[in-house]
């Protein structure tokens, strides 16, 4: 292909994208930075471009805001529990499904349908699941603990509430890990596996010394992307626990949502957003460099 793109292609490939991105995302990005350094709320009755300048007091307030700090740390805890759990479960099922058996194709199709559900639907399902008279207490635990099962109020106990969120996320996103690992493992060239077989390696040894190392880059990508996705958790928390009891399960996304919508504290919400943005950008830049670009 000619090195320099012909003019018509160059325009088609850059102009529309720039219009869309600048118009919809980059301008608001600039506004956010402006808002973070002013004091404004719709309740003040003035337009946001006339708001008084207050330098970095929003940021100072954020750094000393315990609710913000605990929301951040809680989200981090959530991610550090959910992602490894999903990886291990996904790996176990992917390893198991390596051996050929009839109907495997349908089983794989069946196991991945949670990926396709809107998160708000999954949240609804588990909201109903963990109700006092819902199936968890009424059927499963009843079978184990008898009558006392009905007294478990999942959404009123801080740790139990967080557990329900974790279960919902693991239920929906383990198939994501499984799907990546499974397609990675089956994409390993058949010749390599056959060569190892002929050299006398057992099925287990082939998995550990051939299949797994070859999909290492894939695993890293899956972990990085899954962690970034898990940081966004909102639907489950908003629908199932509403951040409750109290603010025991409030994720950072829900906190920013509340600041902007409930308390209408726009400029402070902007500042908090920028801090979160910076933290995640730095972490993802390091993670992408360390995991993906090293590949």
């Amino acid at each position: 292909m000619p090195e320099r793109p012909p003019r018509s292609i160059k325009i088609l490939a850059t102009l529309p994208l720039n219009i869309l991105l600048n118009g919809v995302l980059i301008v608001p990005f600039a506004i956010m930075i402006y808002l973070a350094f002013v004091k404004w709320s719709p309740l003040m009755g003035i337009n946001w471009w006339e708001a008084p300048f207050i330098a970095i007091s929003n940021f100072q307030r954020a750094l000393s805001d315990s609710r913000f700090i605990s929301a951040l740390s809680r989200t981090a805890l959530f991610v550090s529990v959910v992602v490894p759990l999903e990886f291990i479960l996904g790996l176990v099922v992917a390893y198991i499904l390596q051996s050929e058996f009839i109907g495997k194709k349908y089983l794989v199709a069946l196991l991945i349908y949670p990926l396709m559900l809107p998160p708000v639907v999954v949240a609804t399902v588990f909201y109903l699941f963990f109700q006092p008279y819902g199936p968890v207490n009424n059927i499963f635990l009843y079978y184990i603990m008898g009558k006392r099962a009905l007294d478990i109020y999942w959404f009123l106990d801080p740790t139990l509430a967080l557990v329900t969120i974790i279960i919902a996320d693991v239920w929906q996103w383990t198939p994501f890990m499984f799907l990546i690992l499974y397609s990675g493992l089956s994409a390993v060239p058949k010749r390599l596996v056959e060569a190892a077989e002929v050299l006398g390696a057992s099925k287990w040894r082939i998995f550990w010394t051939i299949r797994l190392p070859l999909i290492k880059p894939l695993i890293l990508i899956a972990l990085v992307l899954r962690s970034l996705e898990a940081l966004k958790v909102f639907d489950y928390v908003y629908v199932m626990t509403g951040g409750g009891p109290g603010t025991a399960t409030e994720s950072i996304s829900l906190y920013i949502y509340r600041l902007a919508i409930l308390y209408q504290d726009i400029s402070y919400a902007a500042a908090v957003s920028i801090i979160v943005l910076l933290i995640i950008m730095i972490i993802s830049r390091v993670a992408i460099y360390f995991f993906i670009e090293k590949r």
Partner: protein
Amino acid sequence: MSRVVLRVENIVKTFGKTIAVNDVSFEVYERELFTLLGPSGCGKTTTLRVIAGLERPDRGRVYIDGVDVTDLPPKDRNVCLVFQEYAVFPHMSVYDNIAFGLKAKRISKLDIDNRVREVAELLDLQKVLWQKAGKISLSEQQRTAMARCIVIEPKLLLLDEPLSLVDAKIRERMRRELRKMQRDLGVTMVFVTHDQLEALMLSDRIAVMREGKLIQVGRPQEIYDNPINLFVASFIGSPTMNFLEGVLRVVKDKLILESDVIIELMRGIDTSLYSQLDGKKVIVGFRPEDAFISPEGLIKGVIQYTEIAGDKKIIHLRVSDKCSIRVFVDLYALVEVGDVASIQVNPLRLHIFDKETGNKLLRAGV
């Protein structure tokens, strides 16, 4: 000949409707390089995979060292297979690649190290020993794959077109090295290729296959000089054998071929030998090197163009509309397109095939 290492008995293998291997049987002796030769899709690779245990035959048995291994998994057959591509584990170093087979057998670390270094020495891989196998050149990768097999001292080394992806110049050197290594180590090898020259140069014996069937088995010279049918005659030998189609006539002591023009093949023949072929529809074949330009040549033709074939020059001669033949001349001979030349065929090397069945009717002088 010495001990039989591999015996393949009436192997049949089908994939859906197509019969990939159709009742193939042969034996391979100890320290022999046995080649399965044939065009793509003739079932040679499938046969190799059946021997290695990567494919289960529908019918037939495979014996290695007299032991029936047909139902054993690949690792219990003490064989090793070198593939055409993806031959090495790209993410491991060359050292780990070679040691892979030994580690699976729980051999002491020290012992592994010695054997790996020794084989690496033999295959001139010391320089790349610690590089990632995916990063080294294609010919080094193939040698690593071979080293990996040799180090576990299998009873049988199987190679599936290992040289076909390598560049023309390096391939020629690797053919010599492979043959020399096989001779020095005395490893029994079954080699699969579609390149007939490669088969001739490397093998002790060749099995020519076509559409799943075994056509002819024999020493390279035997297959080259005495092909049993038209397919083997045309497939073996570069450039391809010359073929002239027509009706055979015995006139006094002359052998004539009536094609769209009368071509006199031989004089002073023993009529009794050829009389039963008189009037038969045949295809007459002779190899380009078995004919030469000479003033009293019987076949006349016009030179269309010339070709360089390594050590010799080939001239393309148009005898008639339907017949054209190729003949070798010295590399530096001065022959021009358009010259007229007369060709004398070496009577001892004239093959006659039946037009319908393609089978060999007679080879003059035998």
